[in-house]
């Protein structure tokens, strides 16, 4: 195509690095896919960045959950680079005539007279930002994002700070929450008639999406400059984030938790299908004698075609006993949510939560379609504190045994969720032993890495000795794997 010889080989190097980085980020890129990607890009015009991006995505990313990771790496490797992004001069003029932002401040109605060369005052800039947001002027927003980063982020070459720090500094100075509020009140004033709640809501969503766009622009602007400063590989390494299924429950950030919550619904659907399928297939029921004899008549009384009963394996009853103290709360939430979402696959699900006291919370889930609401009620209404609100597994288990122990039947599968950090209280592990005698299975799920088990006040080994299995469950991938064991 239009690629010149020397740039082709450098392109190859860049692509090889790019694919290595994708693999390092956890994407399973195979050799064939690598070759496909190389093949694909020869068919598209290289200057068409969008086509280039989608060509790589179609050949390399085969799971939509990995899209964000791909996008980040792509941006770092193939983002626009050039003098415009150097960290050199701090007082760079507002560069609106840049080729990719064909915006003109006069045309945009800014009228502040600052478009040409001299720097704007913060007030003028705030005003331009307000107008750009009001009119949804994307080119202007991009230019302003660039300007805002130059002005407020205080980026210095070689400074060992992550992009989040610069992002925070820029956003703090722009005070977008306040801007959003002003936009809303102005929209209300300008409306011919008072806005109905519906209109107001639509208006707000519109502004919100524009503000989000601006934030994205600022973020990628910071990223571009960091790439220019530190080089591609170093930057890709700092930006590397775990894929959604690998996010650690115990250390997830707020954004990651949001991502997990979104990931959990499709996961439950998948698991439900899989469990139902497993139940229907894979085994045959006992011989159906009557049916076999009836069919044997057509073979002259020879039972040539044995018939079997339709298999109806009993669905298990599940007891979930979850520690919801601070450190493991997120894990308990996700597991409860997951188990209840697939509760159709079990004959019954009962949940108990504890810290140092224990409470049954099944009632919060009954007849509720919205599981996150139920989880919220569990966190706020369950009576789980006995003395001081520090985990006491021993006491919680003892109370559980007294109150509910006789309801455990041979059909019951018990899941215990927690890190078994008992704050040096007595363990009462006899309860687990008794449980495992009565129940079908007792499993312990621990959100801590295996290396930390039985260190400090963790006594998971002592409990685990009486369980049918202890599983490390640090992320969705491991949780998903465990659920398949259930039956």
């Amino acid at each position, binding site marked *: 195509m239009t690629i010149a010889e020397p740039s082709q080989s450098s392109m190859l190097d860049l692509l090889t690095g790019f694919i290595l980085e994708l693999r390092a980020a956890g994407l*399973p890129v*195979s050799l*064939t*896919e690598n070759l*496909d990607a190389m*093949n*694909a890009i020869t*068919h*598209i*015009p290289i200057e*068409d960045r*969008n*086509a280039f991006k*989608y*060509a790589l*995505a*179609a*050949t390399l*990313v*085969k*799971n*939509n959950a990995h*899209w964000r990771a791909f996008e980040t790496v792509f941006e770092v490797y193939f983002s626009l680079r050039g003098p415009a992004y150097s960290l050199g001069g701090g007082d760079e003029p507002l560069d609106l005539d840049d080729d990719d932002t064909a915006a003109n401040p006069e045309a945009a109605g800014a009228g502040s007279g600052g478009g040409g060369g001299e720097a704007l005052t913060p007030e003028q800039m705030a005003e331009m930002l307000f107008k750009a947001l009001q009119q949804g002027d994307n080119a202007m927003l991009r230019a302003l994002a660039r300007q805002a980063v130059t002005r407020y982020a205080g980026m210095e070459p070689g400074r060992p700070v992550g992009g989040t720090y610069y992002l925070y500094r820029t956003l703090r100075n722009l005070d977008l*929450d306040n801007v*959003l*509020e002003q936009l*809303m*009140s102005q929209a*209300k004033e300008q409306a011919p008639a008072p806005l*109905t*709640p*519906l209109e*107001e*809501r*639509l208006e*707000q*969503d*519109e502004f919100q*999406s524009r503000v989000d766009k601006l934030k994205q622009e600022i973020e990628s602007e910071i990223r571009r400059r960091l790439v220019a400063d530190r080089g591609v590989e170093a930057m890709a390494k700092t930006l590397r984030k775990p894929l959604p299924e690998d996010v650690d429950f115990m250390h997830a950030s707020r954004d990651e938790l949001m991502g997990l*919550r979104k990931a959990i*619904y*499709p996961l439950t*659907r*998948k698991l439900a*299908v*899989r469990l139902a*399928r497993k139940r229907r*297939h894979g085994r045959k029921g006992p011989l159906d004698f009557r049916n076999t004899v009836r069919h044997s008549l057509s073979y002259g009384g020879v039972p040539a075609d044995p018939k079997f009963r339709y298999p109806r394996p009993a669905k298990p009853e599940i007891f979930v006993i979850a520690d919801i103290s601070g450190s493991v709360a997120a894990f308990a939430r996700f597991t409860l949510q997951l188990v209840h979402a697939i509760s159709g696959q079990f004959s019954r699900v009962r949940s108990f939560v504890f810290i140092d006291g224990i409470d049954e919370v099944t009632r919060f889930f009954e007849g509720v*379609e*919205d599981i*996150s609401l139920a989880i919220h009620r569990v966190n706020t209404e369950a009576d789980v504190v006995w003395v001081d609100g520090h985990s006491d597994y021993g006491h919680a288990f003892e109370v559980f045994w007294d109150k509910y122990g006789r309801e455990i039947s041979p059909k019951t599968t018990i899941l215990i969720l927690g890190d078994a950090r008992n704050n040096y209280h007595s363990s009462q592990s006899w309860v687990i032993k008794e449980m495992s005698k009565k129940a079908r299975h007792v499993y312990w799920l621990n959100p801590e890495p295996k290396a930390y088990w039985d260190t400090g006040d963790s006594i998971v080994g002592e409990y685990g000795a009486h369980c049918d299995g202890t599983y490390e469950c640090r992320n969705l991938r491991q949780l998903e794997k465990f659920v398949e064991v259930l039956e």
Partner: protein
Amino acid sequence: MDSRFDSPDAVRSRLRDVDYLSDDAIAGVVFLADRLGKPILVEGPAGTGKTQLAKSVAEILGARLIRLQCYEGLDESKALYEWNYKKQLLRIQAERNNESTWEDIETDIFSDEFLLTRPLLEAIRSDDPVVLLIDEVDRVEIETEALLLEILSDYQVSIPELGTITAKQIPMVFLTSNNTRELSEALKRRCLFLHIDYPDMEREKEIVLTRVPEITDNLADQVTRIVRSIRQLELKKSPSVSETIDWARTLLMLGIESITEADAIDTLNILLKYQSDITRATKELSADTTQRRPGVPRTS
């Protein structure tokens, strides 16, 4: 092989001619699939036009659409080919009186005449251009997926009694998946991957305008804005594009020109299919926005 399209933009404009509004990703991947001769695995929420894409591509190419609907229990004899054993039996009986040898009959009954072609084989053997659509491939068991592998990578089918049948022309192949289970690595590796998500607001508005030509610009705008707001809620099932179109048609039929809150709430059951979702959306749409976000103080 002759390529069917000149550039991604050409794909885009030709798809537009048949009222399918694509975006960069869709046009780019269709273009590449043609150039590389690879199947496309299309994934995404229900009702975003996955199947329609295959139909539209078939339409612009003037090709016949061969569709294989997948389901649990699909097997070789439904997907690839089957021997017409009744006819074979007849043939054997007819031969009984003649003095033909065993070999004669054997070669005879395992010939083309006794072969029943099923969608996959049919797509391969066709002389005219075809588009093969393998719909909801995630419904078959993981073992059955293996049936598809030969045809997807080499465009050929091996029949033990006949030998290998190779495609006369490489068809465009679309596989769709609703992602109810993880597809096997082997299958994914052979395909280009395309995720079709809910469109952004501008594109959705265009889609509504194309699909419901009688609608006014103003109403289409309102419809898509409300749908966008609803998609931001945490719902069991977000409204799909086809539901948006249904909703726009309904509003048009009711003679509504500008949507009020009451109209929206009365017709929500067209957009949303779960009672809990409807309750939630009703609450959100009629709620005072200033109460919704704690960060925003009430302005009097």
